[in-house]
């Protein structure tokens, strides 16, 4: 994988071990691994909101929070990050794998 050459560490789930090591180039790489060839403005809106929210609150925002606090309609989120948008967007944003709350 291209990300192997980027000198960053991933956790057991394949998510960035330290979110401070994240940068926009890495996000583009990770997006390609997730099958997203190009990150549009709307992708960046999601990624930037997730990072800001994580840093402020210490938790990866849920799909509902992305809608309510981030203003990102859920339908659109699914088309931006197909098949599991919360997990995919979190990985691209350099955040830990979201925990399905028990």
């Amino acid at each position, binding site marked *: 994988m291209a990300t192997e050459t980027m000198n960053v560490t991933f956790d057991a789930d394949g998510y960035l071990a330290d979110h401070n090591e994240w940068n926009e180039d890495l996000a583009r790489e990770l997006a390609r691994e997730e099958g997203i060839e190009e990150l549009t403005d709307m992708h960046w809106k999601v990624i930037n909101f997730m990072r800001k929210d994580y840093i402020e609150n210490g938790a990866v925002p*849920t799909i509902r929070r992305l809608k*309510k606090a981030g203003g990102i309609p859920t*339908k659109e989120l*699914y088309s931006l990050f197909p098949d599991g948008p919360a*997990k995919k967007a979190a990985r691209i944003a350099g955040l830990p794998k979201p*925990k*399905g709350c*028990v």
Partner: protein
Amino acid sequence: MKKLVILGAGTAGTIMANRLSPVLDKGEWHITVVDKDETHYYQPGFLFIPFGVYNQQDVIKPKRDYLPSGVELVMSGIELIEPERNRVKLENGKVLEYDLLIIATGSRIHPEETEGMKDGGWHKNIFDFYTIEGSTALANYLKYWEGGKMVVNIVEMPIKCPVAPLEFVFLADWWFTEQGLRNKVDIEFVTPLPGAFTKPRASKYLGDFLDKKGISLVTDFGIERVDSGANKIISYDDKSIDYDLLVTIPTNMGDEVIERSGMGDELNFIPTDPNTLQAKNYENIFVLGDATNLPSSKAGSVAHFQSEVLFENILRFIDKRPLLPEFDGHANCFIESGFGKGILIDFNYDVEPLPGKFPLPGVGPFSLLEETRMNHWGKMMFRWMYWNLLLKGAELPIQAQMNMAGKRQ
């Protein structure tokens, strides 16, 4: 006279009233409990009602019978909590001032959060089993159902008692077999999660169970709407699933008063310190049970474990001592697996459910992450323990903190 107010007389609020009332000096502290509903429901029993194992009478008792005589009970809805002014406005017009507030307002289902859920099919061929109304309506429907495709769908996480939907399909498999109907029923478990359950090892184990019982599993399904005219559920990414009978676990949310008071997150759950149970933004407010935003299970066993930690912390707060960060997310759940058997899981914030033995003085050990008859009896025995010990705040032979004894890594 100082004032302690407890909002909610469900499992968590009732336990706290019973623990604190005998200990706080009556000359110094006045305890008020507020709730709008006279009836206490044994909510773990709702699961069994659709299959005729319990009826309504088995799961209801008057709330007053379970509260200590030393507390004042006010029957009213809550209009607004004003944490900056240390007071609570009630729907009956009364204003309660407090020195210390415990919020235990729980969580409830909100089917109206999903488009189309409450259209034509609601309680006709779409049911919940998280309310007394839903579970009894489903019992009546199942009595005369001749078979078809039953879809059990979790709308979104978190939900109260996250193992209940799995227990429901296990019990349904057993019940349809007993009725001689199993070969006419398809059971499909449709979840937004990537597996049968959230924690990896338990998810694998329980997923294998679904397989063994001939229950199909659809993962990563984020429901957008119900088309109750066509009997279909449709996901945000336009996948569609047909049903004849839809059993839904709708969005769970904290009480509306939390939203009105500006104290909650986007699901009206209150930001709470995960270890001390103090509200994040207010030092004289504590939160327990389903009302918190914590990543622990929303379940009675959790409220019970929290109550032990919170009891100590309330006394420490009153004595101006530092709070103990002792709550570890401990949950202990009997999972009914059908045919008179059950599975036990025991876990916390950091340790996922592991196999092994669960030592219980005088009764146990119970087997962990393994199907046994004894675990089923544990589950059945729990109802007696709930009414007679747990609600009264009595000491149970289980520690508040999870223990690794008996568990295999």
